[in-house]
């Protein structure tokens, strides 16, 4: 598969989840594990540009796919507009949900560039945050929507 633009080839156990492949085989620990029931969304990555919870699929299922993790979002040392929007709007506190939240938000704006507050709230339903109360996350996504957050 291609991860953040580089080709990766490994023989893996069939039971290895994609999130463990990313974290333990590739060392991309920016993607987090917060639960074991696919409820929290901390492990959200982009697969072919669409958000997927990387604990819900096996690594072998992503064979040949193009994966983007939080490590692959910034370009040439510059924040992606969504990262910038989270920073400017204080959309993160402890940061544990942030990677998944940012990836889910990028995917949301790609599918639906003109979002309302209700769309954002509905669209991020699968990602839990315990710190921010979501207020500033929603604000950040709305701000990014106005500045090319889907790019």
């Amino acid at each position, binding site marked *: 598969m291609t991860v953040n633009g580089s080709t990766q080839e490994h023989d893996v156990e069939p039971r290895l989840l994609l999130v463990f492949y990313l974290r333990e085989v590739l060392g991309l620990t920016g993607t987090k594990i917060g639960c074991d029931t696919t409820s929290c969304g901390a492990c959200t990555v982009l697969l072919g540009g669409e958000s997927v919870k990387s604990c819900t699929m096996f690594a072998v299922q992503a064979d040949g796919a193009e994966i983007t993790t939080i490590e692959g979002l910034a370009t040439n040392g510059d924040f992606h507009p969504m990262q910038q929007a989270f920073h400017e709007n204080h959309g993160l506190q402890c940061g544990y949900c942030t990677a998944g939240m940012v990836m889910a938000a990028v995917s949301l704006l790609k599918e639906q560039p003109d979002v309302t507050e209700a769309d954002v709230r509905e669209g*991020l339903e699968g990602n839990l945050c315990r710190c921010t109360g979501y207020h500033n996350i929603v604000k950040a996504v709305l701000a990014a929507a106005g500045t090319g957050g889907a790019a």
Partner: protein
Amino acid sequence: MTAVIGTRYSRREDAPILTGEARYIDDLVVPGALHVALVRSPHAHARVTSVDSSAAAAMPGVVAVYTGADLAGEWAGPMPCAWPVVEDMKSPAHFPITPDKARYVGDAVAAVVATSAVAAKDAALAVVVDYDVLPAVIDLEDSLSDRVVINEDLGTNLAYTWELKPDEAKVDEAFAGAAHTVKERYVQQRLIPSAMEPRGVLVVPAPFGGDYTVYSATQIPHILKVMLALGLGISETKIRVIAPAVGGGFGSKLNVYAEEVLCLALARKLKKPVRWTEERTENTQATIHGRGQIQEIELAADANGKVTAVRVSLLADMGAYMQLVTPGIPLLGAFLYHGVYDVPAYSFTCRSVFTTMTPTDAYRGAGRPEATYAIERAMDALARKVGVDPAELRRRNFIPAEAFPYSSAPGLVFDSGNYDGALDKALEMVGYEGLRKEQTMRRESGSKKHLGIGLSSYCEMCGLAPSRVLAALKYGAGGWEAASVQLLPTGKVQVTTGTSPHGQSHETCWSQIVADRLGVSPDDVDVLHSDTAISPLGMDSYGSRSLAVGGTAVAMATDKVIDKARTIAAHQLEVSESDLDFAGGVFSVKGSPDKAMPIQAISFASFTGHNLPDGMEPNLRAEASYDPPNFVFPFGTHVCVVEVDEETGKVDLLRYVAVDDCGNQINPMIVEGQIHGGVVQGVAQALFEEASYDEDGNLLTSTLADYLVPSAAEMPSFELGFQVTPSPTNPLGVKGIGEAGTIASTPAVINAIVDALSPLGVTDIRMPASPQRVWQTIQEAKGAR
């Protein structure tokens, strides 16, 4: 130089997090580390009769399997409880692996050590444990009856009775002469803190040097170090504790846990790095829970609704064991059951019992949300009885602004406040009069969609805490905080703090405090923390203490640095210190502004030591430890507006207005973020969350699929307003804000629901107010009419 305190300075913590660079406990890679998996009891109460580990021990990758008996020689003592609230408190001996019986579902009965996490978990499933199952105790009143005594050696389930009764005769007299009384019973359900990052620990030993580096997802690296040394008989000088990036705590990581002690013991025994990462189901079962109280509150009032006495009786759920501060949690609320009201007579009793459920301990607010809930619900009940608007009843009872500092009947001194101001502002923001009119119109039209408006006027004691007060409450440590500030040779500033942030933005805010005083850019100030080797003195982060206590220590250390710099400047400029001005980071001679030295030049001079006053030590560095003379008392009024569907029981949050006063604000953006998150946790208690147990003591909400942490879809945006009444307690004039939102919001929501449904005869609703429960409550109220 423009002011940096009070500005929305953007967070320096963000970049590593937003790029995936920040390393949390499970992101740390240590070659050769062994992994621990725990065999946990599936029974709430059961004697362990045998553990057969032969099959597990033979599995691939397994290094060892240990029972409680195998490890008995490792412990220097049982797991610590730092807050024995009374002399004769009962407490069962608690060990990382239970040697005798399991006291809750999740209690560890064996540990498997293997070369990978997967191998350890597979083998844990192969350990065969025989149990003699005993009856579960999950009801607090049942526990109190001692029908089943969980710990035979203690003879009772009653852990302690704690009373605060300054003048019982006065209370009795007030009730005897009252025109109105209310007596309410509320249930504070158990909550699961649910930090998004589960716990984890990694111990790296240096077997020949005899020292250990302990990485843990903890709020309290300093306290943990002391407790690990005591608990395992290791010299404190040989333990270094590091809290890496920590993904939220909310009190749940303010503890010393079995797994932390176990991993250090195993690293010592096996002479290898040992790690354990918590799964979410372990988090729900074996990390502490919060709340868990049955509250009885009585108010006596005169004909106008002026409250003359408050009498409170609590029954508090300790769970299976006393964790670090379990017994003290009800005491943190014990002084606050009169809320923001001037009440002359006060009586408080708490009885605390053991059950066969997960231990309880600090969860955001810890004791103070419970107190605020009880008084704010009871004030609404009193308003209905007296027949006045709840806002008006609050006004009649507020401690007046001119009464501060206010000595309360239970014995606190409230530092500063303006409760009327916060209420007025909140009512204006929400458009209270208009909402009441709309509510009346809806009621008259027979609408099934009921509008409810709920108020919560709160204050809380935080900034834990004056050490002498903690001594009086029998807490085992002090409440000070420490910091150091050092100007480096290049003029950059390095700060160490004893606070241990896990989302609260201390790096950003402390740099603002230091930069403001030194007259440098916050970008030139770095803040180091959460490593006992770098910042050896500290009491860590909990109880909304970090700014009011830790931030003050940072300010004090900065001032000491400035004082020393002034002496050096005077020496080098050959003037007296009183002839110097200090502004914008530059010392200049009064009347001769060209004779000046920037603080960076003084820093370099102190580094070279070439030309310092006689006898002065080189280097521009200072330390400070600050023990606060009092708590701080943030306050405010929150207003929640709900629509309740009579036919489905569904509650919609239409609006949420919060007016908070935490004194001076270092960074309003951070303050707002703390309120947003705090409010949602309190709203979640009101509407969604409960750790539910079946009668056999099984936790039914052991995953995030069952335990309803709200998502963005269930929450509205918030309307925040502020008032600033500085605290006279500390030189920054600040109060804590980390817990205020949680403390205020729960009663605002429930008061709104009860307000909405009061025409149907509803006077109470048990939390969480799920649609089913609201619907049932409506049916019961209708049936009773």
